[in-house]
């Protein structure tokens, strides 16, 4: 059992439109309540945008602007600049986008916002596909995962969004997962102390899209971390790596075997996934160690 350090300020209302057991709504509740009421949000079309509404109801107690699918970071930039002009420098502008709206169609606008170092917090709810439109692949879909548009399994690797954003020199970029809520909350809190663009990728296992029982979201999320498929880490200023959960204890098979999207995997493919995860994990540990050494030597 783990106590979750969340002060719930009722900023996320019950009765919203998420599926039962939805991990995204769980993350949204934690993030909103950690940020607090002095905030305004931008959503592109996504599960999150559906969870917001429908009009005239809102499940969020902060104002929301829903923009187009490609433009979350651009719209957030415009909102930020307008609030600055109106003297609201301290209001947090937060983007909530899916992985399609982040890794794919919204990436150009995101890259530009990061390049300009817009003072926004960008949260990507990463469920590794276009779940709101029926579970098609995105460039966040992992190797060999089956989706509605890659029924035989996706032949290419998941895009390394964290590495790409780190290469922009973004002040703060981190991964988080719903199975590690205190880590998620701590990262949101930390991001609020930083000026400039901050990016948080939160793994939100999609029960419907991944083929999981309604009550399994949190445990699958923990397995994603324990298997090294979704390591918890943060990168500051593009180069200071910190591994927040330095303990890869499970084979990927323990994580993959629970999900319908990997049911077709043969031994060779499974070994391929395991090898890729081991390689990425080793690289991540090396970078974290180098950052620790660099800090020690001042």
């Amino acid at each position, binding site marked *: 059992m783990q106590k979750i350090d969340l002060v719930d300020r009722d900023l996320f209302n019950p009765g919203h439109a998420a599926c039962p057991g939805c991990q995204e709504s769980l993350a949204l509740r934690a993030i909103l309540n950690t940020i607090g*009421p*002095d*905030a*305004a949000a*931008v959503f592109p079309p996504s599960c999150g*945008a*559906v969870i*917001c*509404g*429908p*009009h*005239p109801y*809102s499940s*969020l107690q*902060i*104002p*929301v*602007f*829903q*923009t*187009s699918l*490609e*433009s979350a*970071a*651009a*719209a*957030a*930039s*415009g*909102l930020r*600049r*307008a*609030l*600055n*002009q*109106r003297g*609201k420098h301290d*209001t947090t502008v937060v983007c909530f986008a899916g992985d399609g709206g982040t890794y794919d169609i919204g990436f*150009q*606008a995101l*890259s*530009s*916002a990061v*390049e*300009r170092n817009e003072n926004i917090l960008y949260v990507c709810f990463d469920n590794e596909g276009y779940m709101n439109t029926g579970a098609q692949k995105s460039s966040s879909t992992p190797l060999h995962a089956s989706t509605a548009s890659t029924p035989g399994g996706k032949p290419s690797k998941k895009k390394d969004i964290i590495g790409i954003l780190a290469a922009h020199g973004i002040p703060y970029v981190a991964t988080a997962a719903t199975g590690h809520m205190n880590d998620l909350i701590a990262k949101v809190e930390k991001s609020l102390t930083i000026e400039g663009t901050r990016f948080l990728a939160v793994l939100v296992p999609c029960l419907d899209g991944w083929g999981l029982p309604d009550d399994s979201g949190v445990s699958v999320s923990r397995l994603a971390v324990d298997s090294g498929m979704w390591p918890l880490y943060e990168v500051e200023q593009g180069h200071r790596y910190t591994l927040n959960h330095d303990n890869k204890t499970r084979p990927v098979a323990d994580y993959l075997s629970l999900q319908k999207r990997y049911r077709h995997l043969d031994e060779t493919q499974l070994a391929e996934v395991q090898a890729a995860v081991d390689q990425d994990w080793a690289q991540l540990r090396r970078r974290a160690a180098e950052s620790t050494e660099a800090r020690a030597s001042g």
Partner: protein
Amino acid sequence: MSSITNLADHQLLSGNHAVAWGARLARPQVIPVYPITPQSPIMEKLGDFHAAGEIDAEVLTPESEHSAMAAAIAASLAGARVFTATASQGILLMHELLHYAAGGRAPIVMCNVNRTVASPWAFWPDATDSLSQRDTGWIQLYSETPQESLDSTIQAFRVAETVSLPTMVCHDAFYVSHAMEPVALPDQALVDGYLPAYDPEHFVEPGRGESFGYVIDQATFNRTRRDLDEAMARVPETLEEADTAWRELTGRSYGVIERYRLDDADTAIVTMGSMAGTARVAVDEMRAAGERVGLLKVRLFRPFPVAHVRTALAGIGRAVVLDRNYSPGLGGMLHQELKAALFGLNGSTPAVHGLLAGVGGVNVTPEKIRQFVGDTTDREPQPQSLWVE
């Protein structure tokens, strides 16, 4: 058109710099903008103003026109006065978000410099770019001169913010955008009196409980379009009011449409933008030759000023429409809009001749216009537009 009596308050400005001055005088708070030929001098001039501390605005330079418009909409809905500018492929890249802006009732003002649309790649005056955006819900004004572009930019904010609709001020590539003329610069205090600070009823701000753009049901969506229609219907009178107030302050006004030497005319040339300037010369020449020809300049294209053009053209025998734009499969867009606007005038409907003149930036001289008009005298009007050269 007013004659210049005092050059002391004039500057020699290109149309683009005149627009930048108009925007500056309107005190925009957020300017998201992306460069494109031949719009870039607007952006660069605003950048100069900003660097010199002469405008207090957030200038945002994203990676595309699409993002520029996305930022513009969010900033506008957060209660800021927003200006941007674009041209050609830029306005086409914005297309999706032009709908978002109008649907969201964001009173952004944008200058579009009318330039050919690829492919093939070209840079010449042609209004197909913005005319093809006529169904997006933006108010569209077309300007003939740098002075009109400056004045229209300021008027556009007043109209946009009154009816909560985005507004574009369009002027032709090079003929207006880069041609220089003495332009009267109004005093900042005069503009401040004409255009008070933007103070919307609804906007994004913590504690207000207002959100924008949520999923809605069919009936509510339908109502948003009826509301938009009502706002559009208010535009001609709102523009007339804004234009009259401007005339009282500056002596300059342009109308919703302009009737030039049309009172006793049997033939009306109907056109927009810089072509109106050329047609004006042609009209004077034909009048001098004893021909009863006048000009109807359409300044407001969206909403199309149906009542105005019906009144202006009722009883005139012939209307010759000059379109420097082309809708494949349809023809000239002003020609088509005008024919629809004149529907049901019955006995007093003019014979409407639609001419595709100067498409792609081909030069159209006053002599050519005289020839085009002359050629219509013994030709039956056709439903489709005709290519002329």
